[in-house]
């Protein structure tokens, strides 16, 4: 592809294009090598503290020194295998939901149903496992727990809310409208505050819900309300004829929605749904206001350590890379789904 002809046609097709190409090459040439120098070639990878970083490059030693906290928060070291097990099983818990041609998908689907309960059991502890208070969780563990947990559990809720809002039964529709508008009308921070500070005041004495769970509930209802409006947009885009054809065939309300309407409506809302999911995944950092330290929170805590002062760039680059990997993954997956579900003429085999 990168033949002489290709270069001439695409980069030097006219005088203006040639000038732009030359300027851009000069620009990239002056940016990229120093960037790589800083990131890799001149970086310090291992050091005991800030003073050990004498080179001109990045001081990645801070990431190494704090790696445990970035991944697990303050989870007790002797119990950390439980978190590692949760991480290791994560692909098997999620892939069967996302990939319809997964080998042994049926068996893995059963595992996917068990997985959330297993996660709770492993992380919190229970019979046979020592309890680990959730205020010890942090870093990537907390980010994934709140982010993925929120996205996955909120998804079916947002479908019900969207269907409910369009329901012909006035009571159901009213409840859904009030819920959606109220939750959507307040910032996530206030929901987190409400969950963590005010909810315990209303609950009876002794019934104490765990801080992380309260945050998870706040994240779920927030995401459900946002997702509901996205799904409703998809439902509204469905031609009336699809409803009529389904009704004329005698399908019930739920059959019509499950088999005909939702598969099509959700397909057209994939980009918007993934957009809100990515937004939420990053918004989980707000749990810092109720004293939980997610990936970003751990990073800020690391920066406050006098041994590693003023390494903002390294810490934020590292955190950004991790967030980017996940969010980019969501985005690629949504493209794959859109392509897979395309049934128009232009698609070869489905």
């Amino acid at each position, binding site marked *: 592809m990168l033949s002489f002809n290709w270069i001439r046609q695409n980069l030097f097709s006219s005088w203006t294009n040639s000038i732009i190409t030359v300027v851009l090459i000069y620009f990239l040439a002056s940016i990229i090598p120093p960037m790589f120098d800083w990131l890799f070639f001149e970086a310090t990878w291992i050091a005991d503290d800030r003073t050990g970083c004498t080179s001109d490059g990045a001081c990645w030693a801070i990431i190494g020194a704090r790696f445990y906290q970035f991944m697990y928060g303050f989870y007790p070291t002797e119990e950390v295998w439980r978190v590692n097990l949760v991480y290791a099983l994560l692909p098997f818990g999620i892939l069967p939901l996302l990939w319809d041609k997964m080998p042994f998908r049926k068996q893995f689907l059963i595992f996917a149903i068990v997985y959330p309960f297993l996660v709770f059991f492993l992380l919190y502890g229970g019979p046979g496992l020592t309890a680990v208070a959730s205020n010890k969780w942090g870093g990537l563990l907390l980010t994934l727990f709140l982010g993925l947990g929120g996205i996955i559990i909120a998804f079916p809720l947002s479908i019900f809310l969207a269907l409910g809002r369009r329901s012909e039964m006035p009571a159901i529709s009213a409840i859904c409208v009030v819920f959606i508008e109220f939750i959507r009308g307040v910032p996530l921070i206030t929901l987190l505050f409400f969950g963590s500070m005010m909810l315990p005041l209303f609950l009876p004495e002794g019934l104490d819900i765990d801080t992380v769970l309260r945050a998870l509930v706040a994240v779920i209802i927030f995401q459900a309300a946002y997702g509901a409006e996205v799904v409703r947009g998809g439902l509204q885009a469905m*031609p009336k004829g699809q409803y009529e054809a389904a009704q004329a065939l005698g399908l*019930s309300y739920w059959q019509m929605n499950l088999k*005909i309407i939702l*598969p099509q409506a959700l397909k057209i809302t994939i980009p918007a749904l993934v957009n809100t999911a990515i937004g939420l995944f990053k918004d989980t950092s707000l749990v810092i206001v109720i004293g939980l330290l997610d990936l970003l929170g751990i990073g800020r805590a690391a920066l406050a350590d006098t041994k590693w002062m003023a390494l903002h760039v390294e810490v934020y680059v590292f955190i950004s890379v991790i967030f980017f990997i996940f969010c980019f993954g969501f985005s690629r997956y949504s493209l794959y789904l859109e392509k897979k579900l395309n049934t128009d*003429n232009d698609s070869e085999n489905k």
Partner: protein
Amino acid sequence: MNQDSIIYFENVSKWFGDFQVLNNINLEVNKGEKIVVCGPSGSGKSTMIRCINRLEEHQEGKIIVDGTELTGNVKNIDTVRREVGMVFQQFNLFPHLSILDNCTLAPIWVRKMPKADATELAMRYLKRVQIEDQVHKYPNQLSGGQQQRAAIARALCMQPRLMLFDEPTSALDPEMIKEVLDVMIGLAQDGMTMLVVTHEMGFAKEVADRIVFMDEGQIVEAKAPTEFFENPESDRTKLFLSQIL
């Protein structure tokens, strides 16, 4: 109401807001009868046949379909819809399902038929409408005429006791109209009870037992094709015929 009656309209009226779309409709259709409904646009012909499977709700009068009266009762509505097939102007196939899945969906979920039986049934009807070699394609990969024939097969798969056609050829290119009409003629010859809203007067002459002419929400006349075309009673019918023939 006689014994062979499968559709019975008694003084049926309906309004969209202040506009009266159906005005005191009385009509009785017997089993095996083929009725063609025609009339100018806005005359209420689509609305009338859509009342038969309750895609539209009538406000006054009585509609009885195959012994079941249509009321707000959801059970009754479901019973009627299972027995009444419908073909739409815009086909309304389900674009996310293959042609075969379009056809087997309702038998499997509504009739609770085993998948293998439903597939066999669907293949029989798809063969009959001559698209058996397209069954694994998606609707948007077929021509309009093929889509409409698939839609007819989909309705037939529920083995309905009567079929409603709401302007089935109006969205088709002229060269595709014939292939759809041929399927409908074949169906009529097999004795299916049919109500067809159409402007295809050739089809009406060939197939209809009665032609129902509607205007402004009323049935102006309803009679056999020869009578209708050669001896129309009202001036409204004469005017309509002079415009379309």
